């Protein structure tokens, strides 16, 4: 039984929430309590499978799972030189992302139990589980077309959830912006997949990477496909100057969804990394792409931090901070990619290049935790006061003691103060990107200081000051909400106190998987 779970974990992790999602509307008709229990159990099982899979991948290396084959490892049926079936390919980076997605969804679900009340809650949980399916599918798959399908599942369910409070009007506006931009990006991804299929007759990413391995096979069509994939995934990842949908979507979504949306954006970021590091890394001019990633990162940091300054809506402000955090990740990954280009295939990457990659990948996890915690607190404030305007809020620390403590933790982490997790990854980023150009580090540090100033300001205006008469009857947020915030806060403090443990055990396998392109190709085509 245990072996069976370990062997089939890559498909079980997608199938469990998918099955539960379709079961939810049926169970919802019978009993609300039963529905909550079922959704909870399904998400918990997915979380456990994610950790089982992670342990398996960290111990034994890359896992390949062939759908519909005689055995799960049979990627090439006899007589074929290219994979013909849908293959799930799970390496260190995939399970790293899967842990982020399942953990945020689990915490977000706990939070939703007390946040989402009344009509439509059955549909809410269906869409919530579909979102989890979309994220996990994107992270597990080794097939480009599959990636497109899961990208669309993710976009449609996220858009519907952003518009969950449709009667307020504004969420509809955010949602239509999101769905039009997402489906536009997805269509260009599909067009790029068509171009690649026309060129190589392949859809599998490992096999494609094997084909696009030299300058000779890197044709004009393949270059166009790369540009389309790169632009679409950067758009979906919300890097400035393509960030315009992001603060709206984050700002109008219901409490927990804002946090899960951060993880959903990271899934697109993962697809970007997969395309750059695995499919194209041998053929493209990696130093140019590295510099483009660095510039996108710097622009995102700058725009995110400065635009956050002028916001008066609490959740939109945190949304702009999320843009800046994406910038940090792109900056560090860009430096790593730039350095990887210098050594070529088989060489050893320079120490600061490795540090930058570690910092960037570590920051993916920290971004979800920091911004997620702030969104949860903001959601609790809105739940209690029904108000999100910073000019009208005030004096909430009198009634919401625990929430204000969690806000301080989140604020310190997002602006990179020790001893929290934000500091652990940001110090890795500061000390490594400095080598490429000192300007990058200066902008990164300045933006962090900026963010501290902004968050101190909103902490002051929301929580400090005398008790306001209009919020006199407000109580502390429900226990389940506080509990889910506490889970995130504990993980953050743990990451901040033992960064070495996290980097060695979780981040390094992911970084090694990103750099090990030959392993990814070899596991599909065999014998490389």
């Amino acid at each position, binding site marked *: 039984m245990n072996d069976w779970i370990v062997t089939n974990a890559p498909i079980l992790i997608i199938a469990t929430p998918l099955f539960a999602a379709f079961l939810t509307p049926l169970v919802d008709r019978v009993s609300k309590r039963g529905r909550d229990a079922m959704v909870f159990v399904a998400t918990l099982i997915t979380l456990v499978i994610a950790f089982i899979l992670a342990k398996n991948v960290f111990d034994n290396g890359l896992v390949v799972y062939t759908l519909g084959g005689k055995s799960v490892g049979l990627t090439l049926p006899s007589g074929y030189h290219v994979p013909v079936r849908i293959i799930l390919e799970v390496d260190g980076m995939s399970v790293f992302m899967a842990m982020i997605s399942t953990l945020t969804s689990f915490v977000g679900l706990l939070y939703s139990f007390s946040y989402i009340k009344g009509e439509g809650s059955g549909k809410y949980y269906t869409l919530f589980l579909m979102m989890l399916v979309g994220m996990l599918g994107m992270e597990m798959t080794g097939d480009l077309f599959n990636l*497109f*399908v899961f990208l669309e599942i993710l976009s*449609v369910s996220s*858009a519907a959830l952003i*518009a969950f409070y449709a009667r307020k*009007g*504004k969420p509809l506006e955010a949602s239509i912006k999101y*769905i039009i931009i997402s489906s536009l990006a997805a269509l260009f991804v*599909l067009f790029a997949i*068509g171009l690649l299929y026309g060129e190589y007759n392949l859809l599998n990413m490992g096999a494609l990477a094997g084909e696009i391995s030299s300058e000779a096979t890197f044709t004009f069509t393949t270059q166009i496909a790369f540009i389309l994939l790169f632009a679409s995934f950067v758009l979906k990842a919300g890097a400035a100057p393509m960030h315009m949908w992001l603060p709206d979507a984050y700002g109008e979504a219901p409490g927990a969804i804002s946090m899960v949306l951060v993880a959903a954006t990271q899934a697109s970021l993962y697809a970007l990394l997969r395309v750059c590091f695995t499919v194209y890394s041998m053929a493209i001019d990696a130093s140019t792409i590295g510099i483009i990633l660095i510039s996108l990162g710097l622009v995102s940091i700058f725009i995110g931090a400065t635009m956050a300054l002028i916001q008066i809506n609490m959740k939109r402000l945190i949304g702009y901070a999320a843009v800046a955090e994406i910038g940090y990740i792109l900056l560090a990954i860009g430096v790593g990619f730039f350095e990887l280009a210098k050594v070529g295939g088989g060489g050893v990457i320079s120490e600061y290049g490795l540090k930058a990659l570690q910092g960037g990948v570590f920051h993916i996890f920290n971004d979800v935790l920091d911004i997620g915690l702030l969104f949860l607190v903001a959601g609790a404030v809105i739940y209690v006061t029904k108000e999100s305007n910073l000019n009208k809020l005030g004096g909430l620390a009198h009634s919401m003691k625990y929430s204000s403590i969690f806000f301080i933790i989140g604020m310190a982490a997002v602006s990179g103060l020790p001893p929290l997790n934000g500091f652990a990854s940001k110090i890795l980023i500061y000390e490594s990107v400095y080598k490429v150009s000192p300007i990058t580090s200066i902008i990164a540090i300045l933006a962090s200081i900026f963010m501290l100033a902004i968050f101190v300001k909103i902490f002051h205006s929301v929580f400090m000051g005398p008790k306001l008469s209009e919020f006199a009857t407000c109580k502390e947020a429900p226990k389940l909400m506080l509990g889910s915030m506490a889970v995130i806060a504990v993980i953050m403090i743990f990451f901040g106190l033992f960064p070495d443990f996290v980097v060695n055990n979780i981040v390094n396998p992911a970084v090694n998987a990103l750099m090990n392109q030959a392993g990814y190709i070899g596991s599909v085509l065999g014998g490389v």
Partner: protein
Amino acid sequence: MIYNVPFLAVVVLIAIGAYALLFKRNLIKIAIGLTILESGVNLFLITLGYREGDVAPIYTNLPSGRGMVLPVPQALTLTSIVIGVAVLALILSLIIRIYRKYGTLDSHEMRRLKE
């Protein structure tokens, strides 16, 4: 030359779709533009798999001496059409709700988020 006509149609469709998305202010027209863009991409996939003189990819029906067109792009297109219908339905239902709330379909007048 004649076999390139579908590819030219793809270019024209995608260009029309992109134009509508970029320059039209009416939400319904934007939705139409997205659909035209999607048709262009679907046509592109189908055209890729076409081989002159070959029949539909049904193995048992294959006349001797003739090949089949590629089945994979057709499977991709079917999936993409199904997804496209779901997205379009969602967009249109959002537009209906927006019209009820805002009383307009002009995207330039939807600025409540920025206030």
